[in-house]
């Protein structure tokens, strides 16, 4: 357990000192959402209709931004070899890195969301469920993304490849995330959507670290 905490602390410290990744992710998220009123026009009803989808898609793209660096920095400076030969199992190491990644990129998105929801005129009934689905969905994005980030190590043009690998896998999370918000705004319960999102998270949580660790071992050979 000390190893787990040590990795989370190190990655948080690295992210906070560099600062760039978290700030970049949030700025991208905010700017993308802000572009929509310019693109589709400031008609409040149209904005209210598309708000959940816009926020979810922007959050999804933003969380991809910092994904490429998840293992790349450690791979390039040799730390990954040492992490792989350290006493904690590599799956454990990967889980710790994913947690740190979510804390530095997923959590800031969540904090910026209420502001963007107001900006896009999201009906007030949808606020709580939007936050709740993002809270369930963004860790899943980090978990699935980590598999992609591990697979692209050593590949040229890894960033582009990463989007191609990971974006299709994000679609279920997107559908049920937006579906939940739309349901509540339309006056229906969002229970089913939220349960499906929780289910996806519950499956990704134990599986993704194993898949990512296997990909990392392959990359290190």
């Amino acid at each position, binding site marked *: 357990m000390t190893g787990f905490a*040590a990795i989370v602390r190190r990655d948080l410290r690295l992210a906070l000192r560099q600062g760039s990744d978290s700030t970049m992710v949030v700025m991208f998220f905010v700017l993308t959402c802000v572009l929509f009123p310019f693109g589709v026009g400031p008609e409040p009803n149209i904005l209210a209709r598309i708000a959940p989808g816009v926020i979810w898609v922007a959050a999804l793209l933003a969380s991809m931004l910092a994904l490429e660096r998840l293992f790349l920095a450690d791979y*390039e*400076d040799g*730390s990954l070899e040492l992490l792989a*030969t350290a006493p*904690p199992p590599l799956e454990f190491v990967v889980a710790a890195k994913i947690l740190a990644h979510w804390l530095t990129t997923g959590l800031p998105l969540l904090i910026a969301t209420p502001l963007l929801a107001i900006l896009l005129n999201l009906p007030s009934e949808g606020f709580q469920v939007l936050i709740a689905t993002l809270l369930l969905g963004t860790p899943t994005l980090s978990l699935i993304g980590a598999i992609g980030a591990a697979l692209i190590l050593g590949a040229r043009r890894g960033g582009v490849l990463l989007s191609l690998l990971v974006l299709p896998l994000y679609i279920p999370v997107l559908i049920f995330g937006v579906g939940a918000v739309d349901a509540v705004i339309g006056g229906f319960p969002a229970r089913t959507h939220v349960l499906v999102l929780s289910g996806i998270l519950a499956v990704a949580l134990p599986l993704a670290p194993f898949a990512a660790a296997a990909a990392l071992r392959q990359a*290190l050979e």
Partner: protein
Amino acid sequence: MATFSGSGLTCLRGENLVFRDLDFTVAGGGALVLVGPNGSGKSSLLRMLAGLLGPAAGTLTWDGEAVTDEPDEHHARLHYVGHHDCVKPILTVAENLAFWARLHGSAATSEDRLERALHSLDVGHLRDVPGRFLSAGQKRRVNLARVVAVPAPLWLLDEPATALDRASVGRLNDAIAAHRAAGGLVVVSTHQDLGLDDPTILDLADFPPGPAPGVAI
């Protein structure tokens, strides 16, 4: 005392055979020095011993037990120094070192143990300097201090003397000697004479690949 040995080790990189049927044994307090021309597989062998690279054939045993049975146990007893120095540019030397020490399970590793490790390689004065300001030799010394800081019975050092000045090579030697005196094992690849006491030399050139066994063309 622990014994680390390999038998019939064969290394395959892509479709190229690097070496085959390699045997070695190191006992506690022993030093195995890997020599051989570039590309003869010194680094590959060390990566194999560290568990980063699976042998195409052959087995590695620690006290008679195959290391592949318990990879985590094997990881707990080894320190590996590869080509990179893995010093994070934004973290200070002390932070870099403390992280690796904690990862090796010694939360209890007292500050002065780390301090002593830094001093044994003469990087104590750099403890609060961020990694990005270090020279190549200083980074290497920090990396070696990481190895010294937490005791582990097996040291795997790949060209540890790269970028080191003569005084530092001497300090590295002292560290290895102390490690061996405590019953530790060291496997080191090198092109220069490190001046270790009573090393066992393993020349990788003695295990030429030849034609791949059982590969149908």
